[in-house]
């Protein structure tokens, strides 16, 4: 009887202590998760390799990015690692192009890269014969007077600004 009278409050105290500890831990976890979501970098950065953690073959392929590597965001590092994994399967002329363009591509602004990707997607939608023709069209375009090229550039910029304004509404 005495045991029952004492056991009741003890069990209650145990349950209360368990709830407090679990609440504190879960609260701590949620706060940390919220912090990490706000930064977009912290959670994944521990999984994204630093330059010295790359494999020797990856370091060789990505050598043009060596100086900038530590400043690249986690997603961009993972993207370059993915490209380095595909690299051995590419033809030698494609490998050479990647090596030549890598540093310039990495130094572009996000908007420039986005515009280039959009253009690439548009070209990819073309039938094969048209796709091949784009290369010749580029050479043809380069022969145009500078003023004409600037007019087209201004028109394109206007279209992009209009599209951006529509997206923001």
């Amino acid at each position, binding site marked *: 009887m005495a*045991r029952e009278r004492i056991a009741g409050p003890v069990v209650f105290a145990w349950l209360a202590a368990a709830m407090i500890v679990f609440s504190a*831990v879960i609260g701590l976890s949620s706060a940390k998760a919220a912090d990490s979501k706000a930064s977009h970098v912290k*959670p*994944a950065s521990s999984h*994204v390799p630093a330059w010295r953690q790359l494999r020797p073959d990856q370091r060789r392929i990505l050598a043009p990015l060596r100086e900038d590597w530590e400043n690249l965001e986690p997603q961009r590092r993972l993207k*370059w690692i993915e490209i380095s994994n*595909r690299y051995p399967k590419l033809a030698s002329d494609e490998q050479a192009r990647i090596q030549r363009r890598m540093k310039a591509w990495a130094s572009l602004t996000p908007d420039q890269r986005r515009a280039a990707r959009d253009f*690439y997607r548009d070209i990819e939608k073309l039938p094969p014969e048209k796709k091949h023709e*784009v290369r010749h069209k580029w050479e043809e375009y380069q022969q145009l007077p500078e003023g004409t090229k600037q007019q087209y550039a201004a028109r394109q910029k206007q279209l992009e600004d209009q599209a951006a304004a529509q997206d923001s509404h």
Partner: protein
Amino acid sequence: MNDELKFSRKIRDLLNEGLDLGNEKNARLRAIREQALVRHRASAGVCLPVRSGRGSLALLGTPEEFLSQLVLPVAIMIVIAFGFGAWQRAGTQRAQFLELQQRAKEVAEIDAGVLTSELPLDAYLDEGFVAWLENESQAQ
């Protein structure tokens, strides 16, 4: 009225009058009471704060019992709780990483196409070329 009832009334009257047993008897009674409490606590297997006859707060239970019955389980519970929290955080980080990796693969597919393309990088960045090409394709 029977003898038992009479006897109990006598005891009640005596208790109401008050007992002056003297210091020595009072001390012996207090010691006996405390011993009884210790035995009771040992048989109940719990440790609770109680008021002693002198009015001071004392903890029931030996240090070993206090350690094994309260401190140790609470410590184990805290370790389990923190372990669970760490496991949960690791899972969240892993999920975020996999999501990031998936997005990186999708972008790598396109970037690899641009970087290996026969078309020079300048062509992809020339806004005039994009507009002119569109104009040309519409004219055809």
